[in-house]
């Protein structure tokens, strides 16, 4: 009995050690056999790889978004390596780690990627980028955030945003609303319901910044937690303020609660409801119930599944082959597009600086990637989201979103690409001290 216990203990300690030693092996060992090397059998890769760093929230609280996003970009890289033969014959090597949505881990991961000689890195959430961005900025290591907060790109440094941020969502929606929906006199009255984190406050900050310029009156600002089960109380106050339009900057589940409560209070249908892109997913429709959310507007920076754009066929093929469960998930598109943009950056960098300079994976290579890759981008991303093009002073690569609406329970596009101009946060240094630095 005793010996059995000892044996099991030894087993557990061995298991724990094996797990624990993994980082050591990966870092110190002479390992050219990087465990993260993707399989690249079809094209004989004679040329050296280009290292693409990815910090992915594969597990943890944000895995609901991180996991399909991870699949999306890994599948895209598989596609690029296998069918397109890599970048000018150089395969892309994905150096990716799971950050578990843990800031401290994200900070060690960005260091790991710098040691591994990655040429740039991407994250798929603003929190993970915020935990990594100072380290990267200080080292001049370029990074791209798929979903970002304004603070990632303001003031512009070495971090770029793949798509418009939550603030831009608001700006684009407000423009659309004023042009196409608002028929009344005077200023429309706006109520905001924001998640209590940068996702929500991003929309709130944009509203604060733009309200006067656009001619909108903010009559109520409420906030909620990601785990809220009832917002009747805040919605009662919003109802009392008698708004014309309600903008929700949040994630699917709490947005669904807010919309349901608006429905129960008789506020909706009646007011116009708009959602930022983190809320506006199929899950929100499922949680709130299709009958209730019918007619709700939302913005989203990518195309939707099944649309007739050049990149759709390959993406659908790979998704169905490797991660069929992710089919229909918008985050997969975002991430697939991210990998296409990343490949384009690498292509520009290889063509402009040559592979040898990039192979070093040092500060000079990073500068080259940033100056000759990211900043020279001019690419349509095969129509999967708005075209990416760098303009000086604006670190957002793609600058347009589309407005969607729930029609018969389906999220349907109601507009083309709407430009989301950069929001001048730096003009309000007292409200947004971070934007001036």
């Amino acid at each position, binding site marked *: 009995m005793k010996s059995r216990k000892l044996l099991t203990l030894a087993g557990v300690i061995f298991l724990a050690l094996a797990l624990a030693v993994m*980082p*050591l092996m990966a*870092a110190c060992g002479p390992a050219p056999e990087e465990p993260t090397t993707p399989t690249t059998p079809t094209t004989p890769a004679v040329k050296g790889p280009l290292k693409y760093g990815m910090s992915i929230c*594969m597990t943890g609280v944000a895995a609901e978004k991180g996991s399909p996003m991870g699949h999306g970009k890994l599948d895209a890289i598989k596609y690029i390596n296998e069918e397109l033969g890599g970048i000018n014959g150089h395969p892309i090597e994905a150096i990716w780690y799971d950050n578990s949505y843990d800031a*401290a881990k994200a900070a060690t991961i960005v260091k790991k990627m710098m*040691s591994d000689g990655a040429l740039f890195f991407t994250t798929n959430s603003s929190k993970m980028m915020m935990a990594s961005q*100072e380290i990267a900025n200080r080292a001049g290591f370029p990074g791209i955030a798929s979903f970002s907060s304004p603070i990632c790109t303001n003031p512009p440094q070495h971090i770029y945003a793949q798509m418009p941020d939550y603030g831009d969502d608001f700006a684009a929606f407000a423009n659309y609303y004023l042009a196409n929906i608002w028929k009344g006199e005077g200023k429309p009255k706006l109520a905001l319901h924001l998640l209590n984190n940068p996702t929500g406050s991003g929309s709130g900050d944009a509203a604060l910044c733009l309200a006067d310029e656009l001619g909108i009156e903010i009559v109520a600002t409420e906030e909620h937690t990601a785990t809220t089960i009832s917002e009747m109380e805040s919605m009662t106050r919003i109802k009392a303020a008698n708004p014309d339009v309600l903008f929700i900057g949040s994630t699917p589940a709490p947005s669904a609660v807010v919309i349901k409560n608006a429905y129960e209070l008789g506020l909706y249908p009646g007011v116009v409801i708009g959602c930022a892109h983190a809320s506006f997913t199929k899950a929100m429709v499922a949680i709130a119930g299709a009958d209730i959310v019918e007619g709700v507007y939302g913005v989203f920076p990518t195309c939707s599944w099944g649309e007739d754009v050049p990149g759709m066929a390959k993406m659908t093929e790979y998704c169905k082959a490797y991660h069929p469960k992710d089919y229909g998930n918008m985050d997969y598109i975002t991430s697939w597009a991210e990998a296409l943009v990343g490949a384009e950056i690498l292509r520009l960098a290889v063509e402009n600086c040559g592979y040898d300079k990039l192979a070093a994976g040092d500060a000079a290579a990073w500068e080259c990637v940033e100056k000759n890759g990211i900043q020279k981008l001019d690419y349509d991303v095969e129509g999967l989201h708005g075209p990416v093009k760098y303009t000086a002073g604006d670190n957002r690569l793609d600058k347009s979103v589309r407005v969607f609406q729930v029609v018969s329970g389906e999220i349907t596009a109601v507009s083309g690409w709407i430009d989301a101009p950069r929001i001048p946060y730096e003009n309000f240094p007292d409200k947004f001290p971070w934007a001036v630095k």
Partner: protein
Amino acid sequence: MGLPCGTYNYSYAKDMAILRTKTHWALFIALLILVFTAPLYCDNYLLGVANLMGITLIAAVGLNILLGYCGQLSIGHAGFIAVGAYTAAVLTGTFELPFLVGLICAGLMAGLVGLFFGIPSLKVKGFYLGIATIAAQFIIIWFINHLSITGGFTGIAVPYASIGGFVFDTEASQFYLIMTIAVLCVFFAKNLARTRIGRAFVAIRDNDLAAEVMGINLFYYKLLAFFIGCFLAGIAGSLLAHWIGFMNAEQFSISESILYIGMVIIGGMGSALGPILGVIFIRLLQQGMMFIAPMLESAFPALPAGFASGIAPMLFGVVIVLFLVLEPRGLSHRWMLFKASYRLWPFSY
């Protein structure tokens, strides 16, 4: 625990010393040399992990004083770390005060906040106190999110640490800074534990009624434990802020607090070695998890979607459960048993 055969103490000073034989000293110095030359043969990533461990260790030492020695459960430790981190961030970032001022103020501020939330400990024990500290964490984070000076939800950037013009801008220099402070903290905590205050803490933990009757002021010492524990949390927070460079209140979640308790318990409560082992165990395990998903995905591309994302937390949980089932008194207890049997070997009866 006894000494190796043939070792005798000839003075009380010698009996009370931490390092008592030449072998002890040799091992200790070798360890210090090993630690402080690490930047020579480790890359930035490993140094980064070591820095994270050092920072975590400082906070865990604080929690060990509070929970392991004084027996006061705190499930809000990440909240107190946040207080320190934001104090340092605001002082050095916004007001551009020197790093050391920020460091000390971070400790003091966290200590004072800890004092306030420690007041219920005079009336309640155990899990009731735990819940008071959970509440403390939520309240702290709420305030950080709603004050304008802390940058609100957006967060706040923090400059590099610097002392007298020397900027700790490389991973290696940060390593020296963090390790020095961590070693000092461990040393202070060890001394504290073996002197008057530490005995008072343990007395309160083991038998608070008797401790009071034997002349220990519960009010003072419980609050002192909260102050010291949270002071160290604040120091750790300050270092964390300078190390990551950007603070956001979301980083200090309740599960982080719970994990700190896990570290202290897995390491072994109420021993100087405990937090060191616990921190190394948990942080390395976490880092190991980081590699599992990529490895699985690349080795077995045909795995079902949830495999890579689900297996890591499952393994993490299983290791913790199995570990506690087999070694409920923590790693340091196992280490003691090992030392004892090694000393008596081969006559282990």
